């Protein structure tokens, strides 16, 4: 077969598959509608959960950026030595940034944070707060193990009297993140399986309605793949439409719901406002719909196409 002929043959097949898939959608509009609606509802549920996870994860990551190790310094350490120590600590692996806090700065902070309890320090006379280094960690070290390793490296450095951190909180943070992801993953799998079951049974009706066509195709020498591709395309189209509708539905719900829950969301997410899916995430949701449609079609065809 010459190359142009092979190309024309390929184009003819693509044209046939597309035409047959569209004809199939037109031939069974109710079945198509049920499949699209099922996929839309599933993706709205899964997408809503993903949106919550995405925003909570964003919040947790922002809080994670504040994970620091505080090194309290010797009372007698001169400003010059403190600066030198800070420079040394910056070279420790896993350290991203070091902020040097003098005794005076520590007092000022306490007073600002204390809001009216500054008299406590005045009562003591001398400033009891030590100078310190606030050490923030590189993003890949913002976990319990990362904190432990960095603290191990800092321990024993001359001028440091004590090391403090929020290791327990870090562990809690990592645990919450893992739990959220696991729940999201489990929920996604369950929803996908339920949808697969419903949509594949719906598509099975369409396959049954077209059993004469399938029989004739196999009689004239169509392979299983040739018979299956239009059904898979139909599934992909239905899924993609379901995905697009889910994105539109979630977008609508997001815009409608956001003003009503504004104050509650501020409690959960703090000052940073919640965000909707990015363009690539919306495309991913549509692609997930298409994939769900294809897998459902494949499941409905499995064992149903015999030569």
């Amino acid at each position, binding site marked *: 077969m010459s190359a142009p*002929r092979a190309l*024309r*043959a*390929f*184009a*003819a*097949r693509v*044209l*046939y598959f597309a035409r047959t898939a569209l*004809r199939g959608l037109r*031939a069974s509009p109710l079945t198509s509608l049920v499949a699209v609606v099922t996929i839309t509802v599933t993706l709205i549920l899964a997408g809503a959960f993903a949106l919550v996870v995405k925003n909570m994860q964003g919040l947790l990551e922002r809080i994670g950026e504040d994970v620091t190790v505080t090194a309290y310094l010797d009372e007698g350490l001169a400003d010059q030595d403190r600066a030198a120590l800070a420079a040394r600590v910056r070279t420790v692996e896993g350290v991203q940034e070091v902020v040097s806090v003098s005794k005076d700065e520590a007092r000022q902070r306490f007073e600002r944070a204390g809001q009216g309890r500054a008299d406590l320090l005045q009562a003591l006379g001398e400033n009891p707060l030590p100078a310190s280094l606030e050490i923030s960690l590189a993003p890949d070290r913002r976990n319990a193990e990362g904190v432990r390793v960095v603290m191990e490296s800092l321990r024993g450095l001359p001028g440091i009297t004590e090391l403090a951190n929020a290791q327990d909180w870090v562990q809690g943070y990592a645990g919450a993140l893992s739990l959220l992801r696991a729940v999201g993953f489990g929920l996604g799998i369950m929803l996908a399986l339920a949808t697969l079951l419903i949509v594949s049974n719906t598509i099975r009706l369409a396959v049954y309605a077209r059993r*004469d*066509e399938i*029989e*004739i*195709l*196999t*009689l*004239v*020498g*169509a*392979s*299983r793949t*040739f018979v299956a591709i239009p059904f898979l395309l139909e599934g992909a189209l239905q899924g993609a439409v379901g995905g697009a509708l889910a994105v539109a539905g979630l977008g609508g719900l997001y815009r409608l719901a956001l003003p009503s829950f504004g104050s509650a969301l501020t409690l959960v997410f703090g000052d940073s406002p919640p965000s909707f899916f990015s363009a690539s995430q919306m495309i991913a949701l549509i692609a997930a719909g298409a994939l769900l449609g294809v897998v459902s079609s494949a499941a409905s065809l499995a064992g149903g196409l015999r*030569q």
Partner: protein
Amino acid sequence: MRTGSRDAEASGGRDAALVRLYHVSKSYLAGTWALHDLTLEIGKGEFVFLTGPSGAGKTSLLRLIFAAERPSDGQILILGRNVGRARESSIPPLRRRIGVVFQDFKLLPRRTVEENVRLALEVVGTPTREARARTFAILKQVGLQHRRHHHPLSLSGGEQQRVAIARALVNEPELLLADEPTGNLDPDMALEILDLISGAAARGTTVLVATHDQTILRRYRRRTLRLEAGRLVEDTPAPGSGT
């Protein structure tokens, strides 16, 4: 040109068999035989009738030949391939070399005459323009080019069978199987259909027609295989064939 080469091959007669059955049996229910111990050969370019009463096993034999069923026992070689042992993936390529015509036409009612015929070409990936030209040519051959945009249900029984024959022949098959192709037609229409099938045989296609219509058997006088209760009871050669 494929047809030309097949004409040359056809002149070789029965020595190059397209269909070979060795002690073939088919059972759907334990203890009962739809076909029992059949041994026969059909050579390239032959036109053979398969006859016998209803339930004799004609359709079962045709289904074994186009690999819709596997034999319970024995060997079947079709176009050089042992279909009893063939992998499922090798069945479609084999079927593309076989045209099949049924009593009930098996046309898709929602597709036009042209689309029904073109289906056989689309399956093998024939480029669109070539597929259109070949579909038009075969429809002209069966006298239905003016009906190509009609749907099958708006055609008469004879016309529907002509569409089915056009679909079976459009791919220039090496073997044409017809299962009671005139069973639903009046006598004049039946002869018209047999003329079309006979024309395909004259152009080099090997033809096996299952029929119990004695008028057709008397008129065409070809090699005739007679089945009774699943057994081959008679193999009458065509008059003057010398076999």
